[in-house]
Protein backbone atom coordinates (compact mmCIF):
# COMPACT_ATOMS: atom_id res chain seq x y z
CA UNK A 1 0.00 0.00 0.00
CA UNK A 2 1.30 3.47 -0.90
CA UNK A 3 0.94 6.48 1.39
CA UNK A 4 2.24 10.06 1.22
CA UNK A 5 3.21 11.19 4.70
CA UNK A 6 5.72 13.35 6.46
CA UNK A 7 8.52 11.05 7.63
CA UNK A 8 7.82 11.68 11.32
CA UNK A 9 4.16 10.73 10.83
CA UNK A 10 5.24 7.70 8.86
CA UNK A 11 7.50 6.57 11.71
CA UNK A 12 4.68 7.09 14.23
CA UNK A 13 2.58 4.88 11.95
CA UNK A 14 5.35 2.25 11.91
CA UNK A 15 5.34 2.38 15.72
CA UNK A 16 1.57 1.90 15.71
CA UNK A 17 2.05 -1.15 13.51
CA UNK A 18 4.77 -2.46 15.83
CA UNK A 19 2.62 -1.67 18.89
CA UNK A 20 5.38 -1.73 21.54
CA UNK A 21 4.41 -2.63 25.10
CA UNK A 22 5.94 0.57 26.45
CA UNK A 23 6.85 3.97 24.97
CA UNK A 24 8.35 6.51 27.38
CA UNK A 25 9.16 9.74 25.60
CA UNK A 26 9.70 13.47 25.86
CA UNK A 27 9.08 15.24 22.54
CA UNK A 28 11.84 17.35 21.00
CA UNK A 29 12.28 19.04 17.63
CA UNK A 30 12.66 17.65 14.96
CA UNK A 31 11.21 14.31 16.09
CA UNK A 32 8.30 15.86 18.05
CA UNK A 33 5.60 14.55 15.68
CA UNK A 34 6.73 10.97 16.20
CA UNK A 35 5.85 11.23 19.89
CA UNK A 36 2.84 13.50 19.30
CA UNK A 37 1.20 11.27 16.68
CA UNK A 38 1.99 8.10 18.56
CA UNK A 39 0.49 9.44 21.80
CA UNK A 40 -2.63 10.24 19.76
CA UNK A 41 -2.83 6.58 18.70
CA UNK A 42 -2.58 5.66 22.38
CA UNK A 43 -5.25 8.19 23.39
CA UNK A 44 -7.57 6.94 20.65
CA UNK A 45 -7.16 3.34 21.77
CA UNK A 46 -5.59 2.27 18.47
CA UNK A 47 -2.74 0.61 20.37
CA UNK A 48 -2.53 -0.98 23.81
CA UNK A 49 0.91 0.55 24.47
CA UNK A 50 1.65 1.88 27.96
CA UNK A 51 2.66 5.48 27.16
CA UNK A 52 4.79 7.11 29.87
CA UNK A 53 4.83 10.92 29.52
CA UNK A 54 7.98 11.73 31.48
CA UNK A 55 9.45 15.07 32.49
CA UNK A 56 12.82 14.69 30.73
CA UNK A 57 14.76 12.54 28.29
CA UNK A 58 16.88 11.18 31.12
CA UNK A 59 13.70 9.86 32.70
CA UNK A 60 12.41 8.66 29.32
CA UNK A 61 15.44 6.45 28.86
CA UNK A 62 15.35 5.34 32.51
CA UNK A 63 11.72 4.24 32.14
CA UNK A 64 12.52 2.53 28.83
CA UNK A 65 15.42 0.70 30.47
CA UNK A 66 13.36 -0.67 33.35
CA UNK A 67 10.56 -1.72 30.99
CA UNK A 68 12.99 -3.38 28.62
CA UNK A 69 14.75 -5.27 31.41
CA UNK A 70 11.39 -6.64 32.48
CA UNK A 71 11.02 -8.16 29.03
CA UNK A 72 8.79 -5.58 27.31
CA UNK A 73 9.11 -4.39 23.72
CA UNK A 74 10.13 -0.75 24.13
CA UNK A 75 10.55 2.26 21.85
CA UNK A 76 11.15 5.99 22.18
CA UNK A 77 12.06 8.94 19.98
CA UNK A 78 14.37 11.90 20.49
CA UNK A 79 17.02 14.15 18.90
CA UNK A 80 19.92 16.43 19.67
CA UNK A 81 19.92 17.71 23.28
CA UNK A 82 17.37 15.04 24.13
CA UNK A 83 19.71 12.25 23.08
CA UNK A 84 22.55 14.04 24.85
CA UNK A 85 20.45 14.22 28.03
CA UNK A 86 19.93 10.43 27.80
CA UNK A 87 23.69 9.90 27.65
CA UNK A 88 24.15 8.33 31.07
CA UNK A 89 21.29 5.89 30.56
CA UNK A 90 22.36 5.06 26.99
CA UNK A 91 25.52 3.43 28.31
CA UNK A 92 23.60 1.53 30.97
CA UNK A 93 20.98 0.32 28.46
CA UNK A 94 23.62 -1.07 26.10
CA UNK A 95 25.68 -2.74 28.81
CA UNK A 96 22.50 -4.15 30.36
CA UNK A 97 21.54 -5.62 26.95
CA UNK A 98 18.17 -3.85 26.86
CA UNK A 99 16.90 -4.01 23.25
CA UNK A 100 15.20 -0.57 23.19
CA UNK A 101 14.66 0.98 19.74
CA UNK A 102 15.09 4.77 19.70
CA UNK A 103 14.11 6.94 16.74
CA UNK A 104 16.44 9.90 16.16
CA UNK A 105 15.71 12.71 13.71
CA UNK A 106 19.33 13.85 13.65
CA UNK A 107 19.85 17.44 14.73
CA UNK A 108 22.76 19.71 15.65
CA UNK A 109 23.90 20.04 19.25
CA UNK A 110 24.05 23.37 21.10
CA UNK A 111 25.75 25.85 21.29
CA UNK A 112 24.69 27.86 19.39
CA UNK A 113 21.13 26.56 19.60
CA UNK A 114 20.11 25.08 16.27
CA UNK A 115 17.22 22.78 15.42
CA UNK A 116 18.31 21.56 11.99
CA UNK A 117 19.86 18.48 10.41
CA UNK A 118 23.33 17.50 11.56
CA UNK A 119 24.81 14.24 12.85
CA UNK A 120 26.40 15.51 16.08
CA UNK A 121 23.74 13.86 18.26
CA UNK A 122 24.10 10.24 17.15
CA UNK A 123 27.82 10.62 16.46
CA UNK A 124 28.09 11.73 20.07
CA UNK A 125 26.40 8.46 21.03
CA UNK A 126 28.85 6.35 19.07
CA UNK A 127 30.72 5.14 22.14
CA UNK A 128 27.60 4.28 24.15
CA UNK A 129 27.30 0.76 22.78
CA UNK A 130 24.03 1.34 20.90
CA UNK A 131 23.62 -0.17 17.46
CA UNK A 132 22.91 2.40 14.74
CA UNK A 133 21.07 2.28 11.42
CA UNK A 134 21.02 5.34 9.13
CA UNK A 135 18.51 6.17 6.39
CA UNK A 136 18.70 8.23 3.21
CA UNK A 137 14.93 8.43 2.57
CA UNK A 138 11.56 8.16 4.32
CA UNK A 139 11.16 4.67 2.85
CA UNK A 140 14.46 3.58 4.38
CA UNK A 141 13.54 5.16 7.72
CA UNK A 142 10.27 3.17 7.76
CA UNK A 143 11.96 -0.06 6.69
CA UNK A 144 14.81 0.42 9.18
CA UNK A 145 12.36 1.04 12.05
CA UNK A 146 10.69 -2.32 11.51
CA UNK A 147 13.95 -4.17 10.95
CA UNK A 148 15.53 -2.54 14.02
CA UNK A 149 12.99 -4.23 16.31
CA UNK A 150 13.86 -7.65 14.93
CA UNK A 151 17.61 -7.02 15.00
CA UNK A 152 17.75 -5.52 18.50
CA UNK A 153 15.54 -8.20 20.09
CA UNK A 154 17.23 -11.17 18.44
CA UNK A 155 18.62 -13.42 21.22
CA UNK A 156 22.01 -13.34 19.45
CA UNK A 157 22.01 -9.53 19.68
CA UNK A 158 19.96 -8.01 22.52
CA UNK A 159 21.40 -4.52 22.20
CA UNK A 160 19.50 -1.23 21.94
CA UNK A 161 19.42 0.47 18.54
CA UNK A 162 19.19 4.01 17.19
CA UNK A 163 17.23 4.49 13.96
CA UNK A 164 18.56 7.69 12.37
CA UNK A 165 17.27 10.01 9.67
CA UNK A 166 18.06 13.67 9.00
CA UNK A 167 16.16 16.31 10.93
CA UNK A 168 13.90 18.45 8.70
CA UNK A 169 15.51 17.38 5.39
CA UNK A 170 13.97 13.96 5.95
CA UNK A 171 11.85 14.25 9.11
CA UNK A 172 9.60 16.99 7.72
CA UNK A 173 9.62 15.98 4.06
CA UNK A 174 6.60 14.29 2.50
CA UNK A 175 7.48 11.27 0.44
CA UNK A 176 5.36 8.60 -1.17
CA UNK A 177 6.28 5.34 0.46
CA UNK A 178 5.24 1.74 0.32
CA UNK A 179 4.00 0.50 3.70
CA UNK A 180 3.08 -2.95 4.98
CA UNK A 181 -0.25 -4.02 6.42
CA UNK A 182 -0.38 -4.09 10.24
CA UNK A 183 -0.51 -7.89 10.39
CA UNK A 184 2.43 -8.19 7.96
CA UNK A 185 4.50 -6.06 10.33
CA UNK A 186 3.40 -8.04 13.38
CA UNK A 187 4.09 -11.39 11.72
CA UNK A 188 7.49 -10.17 10.58
CA UNK A 189 8.65 -8.97 14.00
CA UNK A 190 6.84 -11.71 15.96
CA UNK A 191 6.62 -11.38 19.72
CA UNK A 192 9.68 -10.34 21.69
CA UNK A 193 11.75 -13.38 22.70
CA UNK A 194 11.57 -13.96 26.45
CA UNK A 195 14.79 -12.84 28.12
CA UNK A 196 16.66 -15.36 30.27
CA UNK A 197 16.68 -12.94 33.22
CA UNK A 198 13.95 -10.42 33.82
CA UNK A 199 13.08 -7.84 36.45
CA UNK A 200 9.58 -9.25 36.90
CA UNK A 201 10.57 -12.92 37.12
CA UNK A 202 9.92 -13.43 40.83
CA UNK A 203 10.57 -17.18 40.53
CA UNK A 204 14.23 -16.46 39.72
CA UNK A 205 15.45 -13.49 41.77
CA UNK A 206 18.25 -11.69 39.94
CA UNK A 207 20.38 -8.69 40.87
CA UNK A 208 20.32 -5.91 38.25
CA UNK A 209 22.49 -2.80 38.11
CA UNK A 210 25.28 -4.51 39.99
CA UNK A 211 28.62 -3.21 41.19
CA UNK A 212 31.79 -4.70 39.72
CA UNK A 213 35.14 -3.30 40.81
CA UNK A 214 38.74 -4.09 39.94
CA UNK A 215 38.06 -7.82 40.17
CA UNK A 216 35.20 -8.02 37.62
CA UNK A 217 34.67 -4.78 35.65
CA UNK A 218 37.02 -5.74 32.81
CA UNK A 219 35.38 -9.13 32.35
CA UNK A 220 31.94 -7.49 32.04
CA UNK A 221 33.27 -5.01 29.46
CA UNK A 222 35.12 -7.68 27.45
CA UNK A 223 31.94 -9.79 27.35
CA UNK A 224 30.03 -6.76 26.03
CA UNK A 225 32.68 -5.95 23.41
CA UNK A 226 32.62 -9.52 22.08
CA UNK A 227 28.83 -9.60 21.82
CA UNK A 228 28.81 -7.12 18.89
CA UNK A 229 30.41 -9.76 16.67
CA UNK A 230 27.04 -11.43 16.07
CA UNK A 231 25.26 -8.28 15.00
CA UNK A 232 26.20 -8.04 11.32
CA UNK A 233 24.97 -11.57 10.55
CA UNK A 234 21.62 -10.81 12.16
CA UNK A 235 21.33 -7.49 10.29
CA UNK A 236 21.82 -9.36 7.00
CA UNK A 237 19.42 -12.18 7.95
CA UNK A 238 16.73 -9.68 8.89
CA UNK A 239 17.38 -7.75 5.66
CA UNK A 240 16.94 -10.98 3.64
CA UNK A 241 13.67 -11.81 5.36
CA UNK A 242 12.50 -8.23 4.82
CA UNK A 243 13.42 -8.40 1.12
CA UNK A 244 11.32 -11.55 0.76
CA UNK A 245 8.36 -9.72 2.28
CA UNK A 246 8.72 -6.37 0.51
CA UNK A 247 11.11 -6.76 -2.43
CA UNK A 248 13.27 -4.02 -0.89
CA UNK A 249 16.80 -5.28 -0.30
CA UNK A 250 19.12 -3.75 2.26
CA UNK A 251 22.72 -4.45 3.16
CA UNK A 252 25.23 -3.18 5.67
CA UNK A 253 26.54 -0.62 3.20
CA UNK A 254 25.19 0.56 -0.13
CA UNK A 255 27.56 0.77 -3.10
CA UNK A 256 26.77 3.26 -5.82
CA UNK A 257 28.88 2.85 -8.97
CA UNK A 258 31.90 1.74 -6.96
CA UNK A 259 33.25 -1.06 -9.18
CA UNK A 260 35.45 1.13 -11.39
CA UNK A 261 35.38 4.32 -9.30
CA UNK A 262 38.68 6.13 -8.76
CA UNK A 263 37.27 8.77 -6.40
CA UNK A 264 34.71 7.64 -3.84
CA UNK A 265 32.60 9.72 -1.49
CA UNK A 266 31.52 8.17 1.81
CA UNK A 267 28.18 9.57 2.97
CA UNK A 268 25.39 8.96 5.47
CA UNK A 269 21.67 9.83 5.54
CA UNK A 270 20.03 12.25 3.07
CA UNK A 271 23.26 13.66 1.61
CA UNK A 272 23.89 10.24 0.06
CA UNK A 273 20.99 10.95 -2.32
CA UNK A 274 22.49 14.28 -3.41
CA UNK A 275 25.84 12.53 -3.81
CA UNK A 276 24.33 9.85 -6.08
CA UNK A 277 22.76 12.53 -8.32
CA UNK A 278 26.12 14.28 -8.51
CA UNK A 279 27.82 11.01 -9.43
CA UNK A 280 25.33 10.53 -12.28
CA UNK A 281 26.15 14.02 -13.60
CA UNK A 282 29.91 13.53 -13.29
CA UNK A 283 29.77 10.09 -14.92
CA UNK A 284 28.24 11.80 -17.99
CA UNK A 285 31.43 13.89 -18.10
CA UNK A 286 33.44 10.65 -18.04
CA UNK A 287 34.57 10.90 -14.40
CA UNK A 288 34.90 7.57 -12.59
CA UNK A 289 33.25 8.47 -9.29
CA UNK A 290 31.06 6.59 -6.84
CA UNK A 291 29.35 6.75 -3.46
CA UNK A 292 29.60 4.47 -0.46
CA UNK A 293 26.61 4.92 1.83
CA UNK A 294 26.80 3.65 5.39
CA UNK A 295 23.59 2.02 6.63
CA UNK A 296 24.96 0.17 9.66
CA UNK A 297 27.28 2.50 11.57
CA UNK A 298 27.35 0.51 14.85
CA UNK A 299 28.85 -1.97 15.01
CA UNK A 300 31.20 -0.34 12.50
CA UNK A 301 31.51 -2.64 9.46
CA UNK A 302 35.30 -2.70 9.15
CA UNK A 303 35.63 -5.67 6.75
CA UNK A 304 32.83 -4.42 4.50
CA UNK A 305 34.40 -0.94 4.31
CA UNK A 306 37.77 -2.44 3.36
CA UNK A 307 36.15 -4.56 0.66
CA UNK A 308 34.08 -1.66 -0.71
CA UNK A 309 37.07 0.70 -0.88
CA UNK A 310 39.65 -1.79 -2.16
CA UNK A 311 39.70 -0.42 -5.73
CA UNK A 312 39.34 3.26 -4.86
CA UNK A 313 42.30 5.60 -5.36
CA UNK A 314 40.99 8.55 -3.38
CA UNK A 315 38.27 8.50 -0.74
CA UNK A 316 36.51 11.64 0.48
CA UNK A 317 34.64 11.10 3.73
CA UNK A 318 31.74 13.46 4.34
CA UNK A 319 31.28 14.31 8.03
CA UNK A 320 28.12 16.09 9.16
CA UNK A 321 29.58 16.50 12.64
CA UNK A 322 32.99 17.34 14.05
CA UNK A 323 35.23 16.01 16.78
CA UNK A 324 36.38 19.23 18.42
CA UNK A 325 40.01 19.09 19.33
CA UNK A 326 40.29 15.77 17.56
CA UNK A 327 42.20 14.92 14.39
CA UNK A 328 39.15 14.96 12.04
CA UNK A 329 35.41 14.30 11.91
CA UNK A 330 34.05 11.13 13.53
CA UNK A 331 33.19 9.21 10.35
CA UNK A 332 36.62 9.94 8.89
CA UNK A 333 38.32 8.64 12.02
CA UNK A 334 36.39 5.38 11.78
CA UNK A 335 37.00 4.89 8.05
CA UNK A 336 40.68 5.74 8.47
CA UNK A 337 40.99 3.22 11.32
CA UNK A 338 39.40 0.54 9.12
CA UNK A 339 42.00 1.21 6.40
CA UNK A 340 45.10 1.85 8.51
CA UNK A 341 46.83 -1.52 8.23
CA UNK A 342 45.79 -2.32 4.64
CA UNK A 343 48.79 -2.75 2.34
CA UNK A 344 47.03 -1.04 -0.52
CA UNK A 345 44.95 1.87 0.58
CA UNK A 346 43.40 4.92 -1.06
CA UNK A 347 44.27 8.50 -0.17
CA UNK A 348 41.85 9.66 2.49
CA UNK A 349 40.43 13.13 3.09
CA UNK A 350 37.76 14.52 5.40
CA UNK A 351 35.03 16.97 4.36
CA UNK A 352 32.96 18.67 7.04
CA UNK A 353 29.65 19.72 5.49
CA UNK A 354 26.08 20.67 6.29
CA UNK A 355 26.49 21.49 9.98
CA UNK A 356 23.36 22.92 11.60
CA UNK A 357 21.23 22.15 8.56
CA UNK A 358 23.26 24.07 5.99
CA UNK A 359 22.34 22.79 2.55
CA UNK A 360 24.67 20.27 0.98
CA UNK A 361 24.45 21.09 -2.70
CA UNK A 362 25.47 19.16 -5.82
CA UNK A 363 27.98 21.96 -6.53
CA UNK A 364 29.65 21.36 -3.18
CA UNK A 365 29.78 17.64 -3.79
CA UNK A 366 31.33 18.29 -7.21
CA UNK A 367 33.90 20.45 -5.44
CA UNK A 368 34.65 17.55 -3.06
CA UNK A 369 35.15 15.14 -5.98
CA UNK A 370 37.43 17.76 -7.63
CA UNK A 371 39.50 17.91 -4.47
CA UNK A 372 39.72 14.10 -4.67
CA UNK A 373 41.13 14.31 -8.20
CA UNK A 374 43.59 17.01 -7.12
CA UNK A 375 44.71 14.78 -4.25
CA UNK A 376 45.46 12.05 -6.79
CA UNK A 377 47.75 14.47 -8.68
CA UNK A 378 49.46 15.73 -5.51
CA UNK A 379 49.62 12.34 -3.82
CA UNK A 380 47.78 13.55 -0.69
CA UNK A 381 44.71 15.34 0.60
CA UNK A 382 46.06 18.70 1.81
CA UNK A 383 44.73 19.73 4.23
CA UNK A 384 43.41 16.50 5.70
CA UNK A 385 40.23 18.19 6.96
CA UNK A 386 38.28 20.54 4.69
CA UNK A 387 35.27 22.61 5.77
CA UNK A 388 32.95 22.84 2.78
CA UNK A 389 30.35 25.60 2.34
CA UNK A 390 31.65 27.78 5.16
CA UNK A 391 32.22 31.49 4.51
CA UNK A 392 35.93 32.31 4.44
Amino acid sequence: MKVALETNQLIALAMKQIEPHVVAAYPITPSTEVVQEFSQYVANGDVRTEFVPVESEHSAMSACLAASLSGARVMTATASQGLAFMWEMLHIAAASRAPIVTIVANRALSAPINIHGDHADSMGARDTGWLQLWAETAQEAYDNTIQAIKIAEDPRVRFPMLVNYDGFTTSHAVETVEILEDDQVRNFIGSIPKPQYSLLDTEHPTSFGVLALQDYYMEFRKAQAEAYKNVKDVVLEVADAYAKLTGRKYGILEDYKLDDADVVLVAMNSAAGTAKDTVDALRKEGKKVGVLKIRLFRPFPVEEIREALKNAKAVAVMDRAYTFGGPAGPLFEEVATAMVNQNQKPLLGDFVTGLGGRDITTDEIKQIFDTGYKALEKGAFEPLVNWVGVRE
Partner: protein
Amino acid sequence: MKEQKWNELPEGVIIPEGGNSQGSYIVAGWRTFKPVVNLDKCIHCMTCWIMCPDNAIEAKGGKMIGFDYEACKGCGVCAEVCPVKVIDMVKEER
Protein backbone atom coordinates in the same frame (compact mmCIF):
# COMPACT_ATOMS: atom_id res chain seq x y z
CA MET B 1 35.30 -18.50 45.17
CA LYS B 2 36.89 -19.04 41.76
CA GLU B 3 36.80 -15.85 39.70
CA GLN B 4 34.86 -16.18 36.45
CA LYS B 5 36.36 -15.45 33.02
CA TRP B 6 34.63 -12.93 30.73
CA ASN B 7 32.97 -15.70 28.70
CA GLU B 8 31.59 -17.36 31.83
CA LEU B 9 29.53 -14.35 32.85
CA PRO B 10 25.75 -14.24 32.24
CA GLU B 11 24.50 -11.77 29.61
CA GLY B 12 24.18 -8.14 30.68
CA VAL B 13 25.18 -6.66 34.02
CA ILE B 14 23.39 -9.03 36.34
CA ILE B 15 24.12 -11.59 39.00
CA PRO B 16 21.64 -14.44 38.60
CA GLU B 17 20.69 -14.51 42.28
CA GLY B 18 19.50 -12.03 44.88
CA GLY B 19 21.14 -10.83 48.10
CA ASN B 20 24.65 -11.46 46.85
CA SER B 21 26.41 -8.56 48.52
CA GLN B 22 26.95 -10.62 51.68
CA GLY B 23 30.36 -12.16 51.76
CA SER B 24 31.51 -10.65 48.43
CA TYR B 25 32.25 -7.07 49.46
CA ILE B 26 32.96 -6.12 53.05
CA VAL B 27 31.78 -2.55 53.50
CA ALA B 28 32.24 -2.19 57.26
CA GLY B 29 34.97 0.39 56.63
CA TRP B 30 32.45 2.77 55.05
CA ARG B 31 30.68 3.34 58.36
CA THR B 32 30.95 6.40 60.59
CA PHE B 33 28.03 5.28 62.77
CA LYS B 34 26.90 1.77 63.41
CA PRO B 35 23.41 0.62 64.31
CA VAL B 36 22.91 -0.98 67.71
CA VAL B 37 19.56 -2.50 68.65
CA ASN B 38 17.96 -2.92 72.06
CA LEU B 39 16.38 -6.33 71.48
CA ASP B 40 14.53 -6.20 74.83
CA LYS B 41 12.34 -3.41 73.46
CA CYS B 42 12.19 -4.53 69.78
CA ILE B 43 8.65 -5.49 68.73
CA HIS B 44 9.90 -7.50 65.71
CA CYS B 45 7.79 -5.61 63.23
CA MET B 46 10.58 -6.23 60.66
CA THR B 47 10.33 -2.75 59.14
CA CYS B 48 14.11 -2.40 59.38
CA TRP B 49 14.54 -5.77 57.65
CA ILE B 50 12.39 -4.59 54.73
CA MET B 51 13.96 -1.14 54.46
CA CYS B 52 17.68 -1.91 54.88
CA PRO B 53 19.19 -1.34 51.42
CA ASP B 54 21.95 -3.87 52.06
CA ASN B 55 20.23 -6.92 53.54
CA ALA B 56 22.22 -6.25 56.69
CA ILE B 57 19.44 -6.99 59.19
CA GLU B 58 19.77 -10.51 60.49
CA ALA B 59 16.58 -12.39 61.20
CA LYS B 60 15.69 -15.83 62.49
CA GLY B 61 12.28 -17.42 62.87
CA GLY B 62 10.56 -14.20 61.85
CA LYS B 63 12.44 -12.19 64.49
CA MET B 64 15.04 -9.44 64.24
CA ILE B 65 18.24 -10.72 65.90
CA GLY B 66 20.90 -8.14 65.00
CA PHE B 67 23.08 -6.89 62.16
CA ASP B 68 25.52 -8.29 59.61
CA TYR B 69 28.26 -5.76 60.27
CA GLU B 70 30.21 -6.82 57.14
CA ALA B 71 27.28 -5.81 54.93
CA CYS B 72 26.03 -2.78 56.93
CA LYS B 73 27.20 0.59 55.55
CA GLY B 74 25.86 2.56 58.49
CA CYS B 75 23.32 4.53 56.45
CA GLY B 76 20.94 4.88 59.39
CA VAL B 77 17.77 3.95 57.50
CA CYS B 78 16.89 1.22 60.01
CA ALA B 79 17.15 3.61 62.96
CA GLU B 80 15.02 6.16 61.11
CA VAL B 81 12.22 3.75 60.18
CA CYS B 82 12.02 1.81 63.44
CA PRO B 83 8.55 2.67 64.83
CA VAL B 84 9.59 2.22 68.48
CA LYS B 85 13.03 3.82 68.06
CA VAL B 86 15.05 0.98 69.52
CA ILE B 87 17.97 1.29 67.09
CA ASP B 88 20.69 3.77 68.03
CA MET B 89 23.39 4.95 65.65
CA VAL B 90 26.62 4.82 67.65
CA LYS B 91 29.88 6.48 66.55
CA GLU B 92 32.42 3.89 65.32
CA GLU B 93 35.57 3.73 67.47
CA ARG B 94 38.66 3.26 65.32
